[in-house]
């Protein structure tokens, strides 16, 4: 035993390091947050990377169980509404799905998709005979953190576009939903009478992205619609799709929905065509390999 201990102590840093085969392409992490170039001990993940992974998993697990901070969101939305006096200036509505808590929410998605009775009652006064153009519904989904960090900032990017592009744009009161899933927007949209609903919802947290916001647009929302009637924009966050790009996609989808009077698979998302055309990077370092060019078919 003593000998073993001594051996570990006299092992100098270089010798310990030589237990790991490092990957020179780790430098390509400048292009991606993916865990590339980890290196290996034998064919296995080195100790440090294994334990860092466990830490990230622990953080993502914690994100799932964080609660929506309604009070702060309402304050932020109030401030935002003051910047856009043209739109509905009513206080945002606080709603709850039929899932009473997180444990129920995780096991009963059907409850998370439905508004509770109190919610329907509280929406009644906001029903309008002339439909709103759009309702915004903010729900915790699987990451309240995604909402806290991105929802209000995204709306701040979206509203000016909508006001500019859609004549006499009318917005329903904004809803904040606890324990909500995507389809709860159908209940809310139908109860308010709105032409379209845009759900802002926390996506299931990833190891590297516990804060990813998802957007779902549904035309003519009503109970019982299936997911093929929706268009989705994913991964809206600081390190993902920018608020501006997401807002442009939303505007495109909403314009198409208004033109075709539907949403879902019938709309092909071509909103990025312009962005792609103006993008500098069309090809990649992997194709710019000076060593071996045979086989390139002349592009």
């Amino acid at each position, binding site marked *: 035993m003593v000998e073993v201990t001594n051996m570990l102590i006299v092992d100098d840093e270089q010798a310990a390091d030589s237990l790991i085969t490092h*990957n*020179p*392409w780790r*430098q*390509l992490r*400048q*292009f*991606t947050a*993916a*865990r*590339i*170039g*980890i290196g*290996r001990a034998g064919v*296995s*993940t080195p100790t440090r990377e294994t334990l860092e*992974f*466990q830490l990230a*998993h622990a953080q993502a*697990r914690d*994100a*799932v169980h964080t609660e929506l901070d309604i009070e702060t969101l309402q304050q932020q939305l109030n401030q935002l509404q003051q910047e856009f006096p043209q739109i509905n200036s009513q206080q945002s509505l606080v709603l709850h799905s039929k899932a009473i808590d997180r444990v129920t929410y*995780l*096991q009963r*998605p059907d409850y998370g998709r439905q508004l509770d009775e109190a919610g329907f009652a509280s929406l009644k006064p906001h029903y309008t005979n002339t439909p709103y153009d759009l309702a915004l519904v903010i729900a915790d989904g699987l990451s309240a953190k995604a909402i806290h960090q991105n929802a209000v900032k995204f709306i701040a990017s979206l509203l000016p576009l909508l006001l500019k592009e859609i004549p006499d744009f009318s917005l329903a009161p904004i809803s904040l939903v606890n324990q909500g899933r995507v389809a709860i927007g159908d209940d809310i949209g139908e109860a308010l009478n709105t032409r379209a609903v845009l759900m802002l919802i926390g996506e299931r*947290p*990833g*190891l*590297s992205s516990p804060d*990813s916001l998802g957007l779902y647009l549904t035309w003519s929302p009503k109970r019982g619609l*299936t*997911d*093929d009637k929706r268009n989705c*924009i*994913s*991964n809206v966050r600081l*390190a*993902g*799709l920018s608020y501006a790009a997401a807002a442009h996609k939303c505007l495109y989808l909403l314009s198409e929905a208004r033109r075709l009077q539907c949403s*879902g*698979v019938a709309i*092909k*998302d*071509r909103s*990025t*065509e312009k962005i792609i055309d103006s993008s500098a*990077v*069309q*090809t*990649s*370092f*992997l*194709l*710019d*390999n000076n060593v*071996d*060019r045979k*086989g*390139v078919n002349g*592009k």
Partner: protein
Amino acid sequence: MGQSYRYQLGSKTYQFANLADLMAKASPARSGDRLAGVIAETAEQRAVAQLLLAEVPLKTFLNETLVPYEEDEITRLIIDEHDVQAFSTISHLTVGDFRNWLLTDATDTEKLNQVSPGVTPEMAAAVSKIMRNQDLILVAQKCRVVTSFRNTIGLPKRLSTRLQPNHPTDDVNGIAASMLDGLLYGSGDAVIGINPATDNVTQATRLMCLMDEVISLYEIPTQSCVLTHVTNTLECIENGAPVDLVFQSIGGTEKTNSSFGFNLAILAEAQQAALSLNRGTVGQNVMYFETGQGSSLSANAHHGLDQQTCEARAYAVARKFKPLLVNTVVGFIGPEYLFDGKEIIRAGLEDHFCGKLLGLPMGCDVCYTNHAEADQNDMDNLLTLLGTAGCSFVMGIPGSDDIMLNYQTTSFHDALYARRVLGLGAAPEFEAWLEKMQIMSNAGMACLSNHFPPAFAGTLSHSAVKHYHG
């Protein structure tokens, strides 16, 4: 609705409304069946249902459809295309006998292949419900399903991998970085397959071109796929994009698939379109399907069936189109369908067994989400079990972390672990390429080269990387 089933246990009488009810009650416990309200109410009721199910003749499944023939094109597919000749070998058996028949020494690979077209998804599902995990492994290991496009998938003692270089904004260099990482760890013989962040024809085309150019430049014996909606891929083909494999997520009822926005006719059209490109060099299996227990319930289209029976019915859809790969994405759907590691592992083994028995090139996305009660150790267990069962392929991701889909699946390292402890190789054409490119010094032993493969050296040259940065 068909007959009800009764069982007398001491003074207690158990009754099951019909065959669907019996199947559901006989299923090993999982949260999705609880959510659907079809799960056995007690452990004893489940065990009784299994005893009763074992007595059901296999023929019953041909006469008593679980989803009405008139309402569902998958039921029609199963019944209309049933191979009576192949079925004749087992037509006299009950579900319980069928389990014994599958396990018996006389039932070898050749016999299983002969009988496979005569087995319906419901028969496969039924027998799986009375099989233990070791049974599912043993029989699946005897099945052999070999498919090909630019290489050969499913040969004995092989475990292929889908290189999955997803990026949250589809950034070309981000994707290329993960691709390089994967290739240099020996991953990607099943397919290089990207889930695009947004379903969009332009984006899909751009990603197809990127992968096509990389495969051409490095002469990689593999195929590419962008996992976009089948109608998008059709449009890409019409536009002249380099499509190797057509992707679609499929479910086991017509209503599920209509919620996914397609039907059998659209799949047939897409298969023909891909075949017309004639891009396969070794074979012409041009479809890549993904499935997963719970999708029918999620689409409110399960017709009162348990989720594993719905899943097996999806394999009838897959079988029709002779896919290169079928992937059950077992832990992606979340804890409301498969609650924890134990349920995920059981489902993965069931899906792999049923798929193989029905003649499919079955792989498995050994995975979990952060809201499920599962972790890396559960995935190690399932990967090892599936490797033992002869699983055709698993996923490969840098460090197990899919930064686009936000879930954890098997890493490049994990595949090497499985290959090494189980003595499995990559597809032979790909294995030869790995050694030719000096990525591996001994691909049969999963030994990576200790030097940076010279053919890739140019990619890391200072100028190349700097030029494309930002």
